[in-house]
């Protein structure tokens, strides 16, 4: 063995991947060349030190952006996508709900007018206005969730993200979307949205129950990630049920096994 050959084999030497014969050859070469041995050891030490370099996890935003990109691409590819009609479709429920819109405008107008005219405007009045806006957002979200276009239903889930302390009806709607929406991308954003509300016991139990209902590997994977993040041991039974499914994707099967190892 010469220096050049030893250099080529260095990486395998360090990782103990050399076969028996080459390993012995390398050992005797290094014994005869202490300077190279020292050099290899120093490089090996640096190589091992690199194991301690930290790698952060990507944020949940990466998944959300990916789903949005994929949905956008699919819609564009379907050639049904037209900017004007999409904008129109997006706001269609608003126009359809003219009464609600008129009511909201009336409430907001009355509220603002009252606040401006009255010197005794109190926090209670502001609270009332907030309630009306909350109800309006909720109504928009629930209406959009009923729309036939996946883009509208995704928009509905996005609206729910902007609602602070969503009530049971909103949570029920999101869980229903996660379990029943025909579009996997909509179900995915619903899962991510619910993950952000996991402190709520109703959400947590809904997410757990959703595990064995899901047939899409992507959602199964996402729910496994969510349960690991939450370290939710109560999900173990549902994952075990899922493992019993015969047509379960191989990758998902591996993922669930790893998830169970983490949770148990």
């Amino acid at each position, binding site marked *: 063995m010469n220096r050049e050959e030893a*250099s*080529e*084999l*260095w*990486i*395998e030497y360090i990782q103990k991947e050399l076969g028996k014969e080459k390993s012995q050859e390398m050992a005797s070469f290094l014994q005869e060349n202490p300077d190279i041995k020292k050099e290899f050891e*120093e*490089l090996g030490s*640096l*190589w091992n*030190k*690199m194991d*301690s*370099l*930290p*790698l*952060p996890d*990507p*944020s949940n*935003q*990466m*998944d959300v*952006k*990916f*789903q949005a*990109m*994929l949905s956008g*691409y*699919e819609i564009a*590819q379907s050639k049904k996508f037209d900017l004007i009609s999409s904008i129109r479709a997006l706001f269609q429920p608003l126009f359809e709900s003219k009464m609600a819109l008129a009511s909201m405008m009336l409430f907001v107008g009355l509220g603002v007018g009252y606040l401006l005219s009255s010197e005794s405007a109190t926090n209670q009045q502001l609270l009332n206005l907030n309630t009306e806006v909350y109800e309006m957002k909720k109504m928009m979200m629930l209406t959009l969730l009923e729309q036939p276009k996946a883009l509208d239903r995704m928009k509905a889930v996005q609206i729910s993200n902007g609602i602070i302390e969503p009530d049971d009806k909103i949570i029920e709607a999101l869980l229903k979307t996660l379990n029943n929406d025909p579009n*996997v*991308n909509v179900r*995915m954003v619903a899962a991510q949205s619910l993950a952000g509300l996991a402190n709520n016991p109703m959400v947590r139990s809904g997410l757990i129950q959703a595990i064995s209902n899901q047939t899409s*590997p*992507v959602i199964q*994977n*996402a729910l496994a990630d969510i349960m690991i993040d939450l370290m939710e041991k109560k999900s173990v039974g549902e994952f075990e049920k899922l493992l019993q499914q015969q047509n379960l*994707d191989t*990758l998902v099967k591996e993922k669930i096994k790893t998830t169970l190892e983490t949770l148990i």
Partner: protein
Amino acid sequence: MLKVKAGDTGKLSLLYERHKGKLFGFFYRLTSDGPLSEDLVQNVFYRVLKYRHTYAGKGQFLTWIYHMARNVNIDNYRKNKRMNYQEDMQEWEGHLKDEKGPDYEMSRNQEIDLLNLALSKMNAEKREILVLSKFQELKYEEIGNILDLSVSAVKVRVHRAMHELKAVYQSLETI
């Protein structure tokens, strides 16, 4: 991937789930910038969709997607005209400066900072081969396919890259 190529773009989600972590790691090790790395991962999958017709099949998906990732990284580098980790480098350099004193002893964290700094100061090609071999857990054959090199050339280059890393690391230690 063949299903994606055939138009079942929904299957891209599965590929994304399978490869997002590794690709994020690849970009993070090259740029030291988390949010930027997330964007670059998105770019890769956008390109996968856009250029899916160029995928030849035959189980070479890993090579193909890393080609995309390398191109995305090169485009990003050209776009910014400077490496994006410059700010982080300054941060690390600041760290090291702050911590130095008469009783200065290098802690484990400082060693990590120094090593990160040394990696960021390396020649981009050498840094890339270290990222591929050390952090991406790719086989030498796979790295060879990605970089269009023979297996022995990959091994020699890893060794040379380690030499450069050691030299940069030692030069920083003496500052």
